């Protein structure tokens, strides 16, 4: 749980540690490649290499869901296993959730953590088995489905999942809705200092267009990573964020370069602190973070948060079960437990991200459920789009555009 | 006498230099004559190197005046002094060729390249080291490096050349050769040399004058011969050459002569005038003593003794004797003949040691001269 601390920019290594962890995982959100401290030391990169090299896997391309157990109800009637192994982002679930699951099901839980979707993918591709539950973001789900690494969920074992809002069941990255249950979600929006920025931008395009003007006045910020910068620009131009059309990508590139001089920083991990201290006058942000910035600037009241009118990014983290899960029944029971509205309420109070279960949302405290920055209205999310990694070519093209943008 | 200072290249006026609580140089006065070869001689820690470094400008005196070429040098940095130094370990620039080393000083003076080369060539010729211009110092032997260091300083044609134990790192044979060489060069160029050494033989053989230093003061400043023959203090007497000491009560003193009773029938009769003291000390050089077999009479300047050891020093035979009063004497004799008389003596033999009246030197233990000219 993160409350705002006005002294956020005062160095206190021990205290900020969980905060840093949290920031990192926020940063990873859309499958991005920002660094962690471990990576800063070259460890993760090495691990990645080692995993790739030692695994020696020549998994050439997505081979379709061959290994996913598509047979009807193979789990029906099976007894619940006594173990559950969760591979998760750190500090992403309320401790009471584990406790209640253990007492209800008599299952011993073992949890290990990762800090990026890439780490998760690398681990699974290198033959990492033994996990019952994983929590990939939307683009990673798409890749894992392609690779056939996910188990088709047995909905009969997850009765509570029927409460999940229908728009979050069949999603672009899981069109059949068979491989995941959405854990929580968020959107990318923007904010500005209303004492300086006098125009009242309402769309992402307007936001971008104001950058060259205000980049000279104060600090402006974009979310970093190729997978944020390029698709968001594509959306602002009215294109599909996941497009592979070279002409559209080229237009996005030129658009980005045209506003480059107005961008002071490209950063997803520190902007909360800086914006809370009033240092960013125009910037993008994820709704959970912007909520905290607004509350930090309550006294000054100088920050206006905008959920873009037309379109923007939405993202989701998802409960999935690897095809190789040793304890599939317990895994299903876990997902079912998390979809229990009572549990979902405590979870949301813990991590401050909405879970698309109306019954649970209704029970959240008023300051949460009435806050559009938390409970983002479906009128917005319905138009928002998931940023995915449709193909390696598109990802490469985005990375190249991003490099050009950065070095410009 | 400041009006005469111009006759002196370097002048110390009551200079004191301290390092923390240690007094390295204690109120030293010294005048170095133009064109002379002056040695500062003494054991390590006597203040000779500190004195040299003050002339060079690496150290500044705490008290007193320092004049170089008649003008005040206190506070003037080394690079603005008309003196140059030959360092003990040569201090050649390892990253430069021999020629560049020798040219270095001229380059600082902005002498033209052509002139630099010509002068460096002359200097290298002077020290007899030619044909190695492009070598690096590390490729030369110790003696050759020494020559380069000398050339590097001489090429500057300084008012005074300071040499800080320049031959210390060379072996004996080479050292002897270089001593002759240095003297030759000094005669040739006529520059004032101030030479620091702890090797008395080196100092005596090359110098016009020698300043013997001890504990930060000059004990005696004189020509090599005077220093050897008439040491003013026991320290000088002992430090320069070998000296046998006897101590005793003045038995008689008159007419420029005296007699001292050193006990057990050892009586020394000599020339001079013991200055009032009841107990005095005399020194006798080993080469001034003659040893004869047998029990001589216990008269003045003739003492009975026992031979303790015998050594061959090549050109000399050396005996260590114990006199009747217990004093130990060193005696040497040149092996001018195939079997000198001294050679017949063996350890354990009884003998008589004799010397003439001119041999005993009265040790005044005077305070060193304050105005050492």
């Amino acid at each position, binding site marked *: 749980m993160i409350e705002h601390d006005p002294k956020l920019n005062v160095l206190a290594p021990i205290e900020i540690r969980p905060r840093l962890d949290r920031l990192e995982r926020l940063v990873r959100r859309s499958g991005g490649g*920002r660094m962690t401290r471990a990576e800063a030391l070259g460890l993760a990169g090495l691990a990645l290499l080692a995993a790739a090299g030692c695994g020696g*896997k020549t998994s050439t391309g997505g081979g379709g869901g061959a290994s996913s157990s598509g047979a009807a109800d193979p789990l029906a009637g099976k007894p619940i296993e006594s173990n559950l192994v969760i591979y998760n982002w750190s500090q992403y679930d309320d401790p009471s959730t584990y406790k209640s699951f253990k007492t209800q099901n008599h299952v011993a839980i073992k949890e290990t953590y990762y800090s990026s979707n890439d780490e998760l993918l690398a681990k699974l591709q290198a033959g990492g088995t033994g996990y019952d539950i994983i929590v990939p973001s939307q683009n990673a789900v798409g890749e894992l489905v392609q690779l056939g690494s996910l188990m088709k969920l047995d909905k009969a074992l997850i009765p509570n999942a029927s409460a999940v809002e229908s728009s979050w069941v069949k999603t672009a990255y899981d069109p059949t809705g068979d491989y995941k249950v959405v854990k929580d979600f968020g959107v990318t929006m923007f904010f500005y200092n209303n004492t300086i920025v006098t125009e009242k931008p309402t769309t992402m395009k307007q936001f971008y267009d104001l950058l060259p003007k205000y980049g000279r006045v104060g600090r402006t910020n974009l979310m970093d990573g190729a997978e944020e910068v390029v698709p968001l620009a594509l959306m602002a131009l009215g294109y599909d964020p996941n497009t592979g059309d070279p002409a559209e990508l080229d237009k996005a590139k030129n658009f980005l370069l045209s506003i480059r001089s107005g961008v002071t920083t490209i950063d997803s991990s520190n902007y909360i602190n800086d914006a809370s201290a009033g240092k960013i006058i125009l910037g993008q942000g994820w709704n959970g973070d912007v909520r905290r910035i607004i509350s930090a600037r309550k006294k000054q009241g100088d920050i206006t948060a905008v959920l873009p009118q037309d379109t923007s990014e939405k993202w989701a983290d998802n409960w999935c079960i690897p095809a190789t899960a040793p304890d599939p029944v317990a895994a299903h029971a876990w997902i079912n437990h998390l979809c229990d509205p009572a549990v979902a309420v405590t979870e949301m109070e813990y991590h401050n991200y909405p879970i698309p279960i109306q019954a649970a949302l209704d029970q959240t405290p008023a300051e949460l459920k009435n806050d559009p920055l938390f409970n983002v209205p479906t009128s917005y999310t319905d138009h928002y789009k998931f940023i995915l990694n449709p193909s390696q070519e598109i990802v490469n093209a985005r990375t190249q555009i991003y490099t050009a943008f950065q070095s410009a | 006498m400041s009006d005469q200072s111009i006759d002196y290249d370097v002048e110390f006026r009551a200079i004191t230099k301290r390092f923390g609580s240690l007094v390295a140089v204690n109120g030293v006065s010294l005048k170095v004559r133009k064109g002379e070869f002056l040695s500062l001689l003494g054991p390590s820690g006597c203040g000779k190197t500190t004195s040299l470094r003050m002339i060079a400008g690496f150290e500044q005196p705490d008290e007193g005046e320092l004049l170089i070429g008649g003008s005040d040098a206190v506070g003037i940095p080394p690079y603005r002094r008309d003196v140059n*130094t030959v360092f003990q370990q040569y201090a050649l620039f390892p990253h430069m060729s021999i020629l560049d080393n020798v040219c270095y000083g001229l380059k600082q003076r902005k002498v033209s390249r052509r002139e630099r080369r010509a002068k460096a060539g002359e200097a290298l010729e002077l020290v007899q080291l030619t044909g190695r211009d492009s070598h690096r110092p590390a490729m030369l032997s110790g003696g050759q490096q020494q020559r380069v260091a000398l050339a590097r300083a001489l090429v500057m044609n300084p008012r005074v050349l300071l040499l800080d134990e320049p031959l210390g790192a060379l072996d004996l044979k080479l050292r002897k050769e270089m001593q002759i060489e240095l003297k030759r060069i000094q005669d040739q160029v006529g520059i004032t040399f101030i030479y620091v050494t702890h090797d008395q033989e080196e100092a005596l053989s090359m110098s016009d004058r020698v300043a013997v230093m001890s504990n930060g003061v000059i004990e005696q400043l004189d020509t090599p011969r005077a220093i050897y023959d008439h040491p003013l203090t026991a320290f000088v007497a002992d430090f320069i050459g070998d000296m046998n000491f006897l101590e005793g009560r003045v038995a008689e003193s008159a007419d420029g002569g005296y007699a001292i009773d050193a006990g057990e029938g050892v009586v020394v009769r000599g020339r001079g005038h013991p200055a009032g003291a009841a107990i005095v000390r005399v020194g006798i050089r080993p080469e001034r003593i003659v040893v004869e077999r047998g029990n001589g009479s216990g008269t003045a300047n003739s003492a009975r003794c026992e031979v303790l050891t015998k050594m061959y020093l090549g050109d000399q035979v050396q005996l260590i004797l114990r006199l009747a009063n217990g004093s130990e004497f060193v005696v040497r004799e040149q092996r001018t003949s195939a079997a000198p008389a001294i050679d017949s003596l063996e350890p354990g033999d009884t003998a008589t040691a004799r010397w003439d009246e001119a041999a005993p030197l009265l040790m005044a233990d005077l305070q060193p001269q304050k105005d050492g000219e």
Partner: protein
Amino acid sequence: MTSETIQPPKRSPRRRSFAPRYPGWLTAPSLIYYMIFFLGPLAILVVFSVATQAGFGSVSYTFSTSQFKALNDPLYIKVFRQTMLMAAGGTALTIAIGYPVAYWMSRYLTRYKTLALLLVIVPFWTSFLIRTYALKIILDPQGYLAHFVEWTGISSQFNVLYTGKAVAIGLAYNYLPLLILPVYASLERMDWKLVEAATDLGASPFKAFRQITLPLTLPGLITGALLVFIPMCGEYVIPQLLGGGQFAFVGTVIGSNFLGAQNWPFGSAMAIAFMVLLSIFVVIYIAFATREEQFGA
């Protein structure tokens, strides 16, 4: 004495027979470790760099120079150049700060030398990231340093954070010990009599430093400069934190290709190409190192 002048330089022959000799195979464990954990990843990089992509995070092992050809693009040449320039700036700043510190430690400290050395290394004992965050606070335009600088009137607006200056400061700060240590070592080996000799011959202190001290400590300085320059080129945390993500270092681009795009072949090719480029600097360094041996210092 003329005979002495033509003697060849003396060299003491090496007397191996008196030194204990240990059998060479004793190094086998170290060599095996080295091969697996140092050369191994390098070999994997080389294999990746000539492979092609085949879907997410997988490669097909072929021999293809397409990755290297893709590198020959104005974009990446610009990234290389930008990186080298920033690293060169950082190295210059590191030298400007580190050399005087090393000089001071070597020449002016006697009793506290070891303590000073320790203090130089102490920052290495805390997390690199935390230190960089701390630097961010110091460089903050609303921080104390900014107030101080604006108060003194040195600059009316202290706006360093998220600029190339901040990156250079961060680079210099984080790599300073790597420069100080070799420079300090070379200064410790320096014979200060040579500087005395130079001033004795009429060189001012500045000239003596430039003509004697600097050339003689240059090998140490070059070692230090390379020790900082090379990792600076691969840096990607500092440009992100202190440059506000505005600077595309080679390390950043390799990182985003490896982690973001999972384009291992391209990331590897870039890494290899950059390694080759840096090797040129190492060759220069080795040339210097052999020159140092010639001095016999």
